[in-house]
């Protein structure tokens, strides 16, 4: 059993000369999901599909001069 988690070496001998192990698959998959979600939010924001965000979103035009959060 290798002592280094996720080590690429398969001979059971630890070596500092080995290339550092890459990130585990769950980290890569999670990273891709995060990137997709960020891009999705950015697209929603840029295109304006999601509308305004924050308290101002719930103010009707007639109230805007009266009520500010």
């Amino acid at each position, binding site marked *: 059993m290798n002592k280094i988690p996720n080590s690429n070496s398969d001979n059971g001998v630890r070596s500092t000369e080995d290339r550092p192990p890459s990130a585990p698959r769950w980290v890569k998959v999670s990273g891709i999901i995060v990137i997709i979600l960020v891009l999705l939010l950015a697209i929603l924001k840029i295109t304006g599909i999601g509308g305004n965000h924050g*308290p101002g*979103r719930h103010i009707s035009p007639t109230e805007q001069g009266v009520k500010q959060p």
Partner: protein
Amino acid sequence: MIMKPGLRKMILTLHITSSVGWIGAVVGFLVLVVATLSNQDAQTVRAAFISMELIGWFAIVPFAVASLISGLVMSLGTKWGLFRHYWVLFKLLLTILAIVVLILNMQTVSFLASIAIEKGNVDPGGSLGELIHAGGGLLVLLVTTILSVYKPRGLTKYGLRKHLGQSSEL
């Protein structure tokens, strides 16, 4: 600096309690959001929004901050470290993200509560927005819980350097 076992258990108890409390408070908040969506009675909607504001500021936010602080102390005071393991790093980032969104969203909740007090009803989009925010928050908290329980393996580059450094000292 590694904490002594007694102190570690005390901080761990605080961390678990605040994290579980955070999840419970969000579930309570969600129940009230659903009540505002499914009920048109002005008194019920008004009461629900007032309660949502109170739960948000006096239960969810304090539990969230306590969870973050106790988590930081736990990671820095144990062998896990803050940047050594991917699962700890992910938990930290998700917790910070959740707290930032929470604080920003609480401005909206307070605003909606003031509208509800005045009018007895709010824009349905407001309740729907709260459903999305609270639901998303609960999902993030479930992910952090899963990370804490399963502790998926994987050292960061920093963690690997530390691991190799400690091994060479032995």
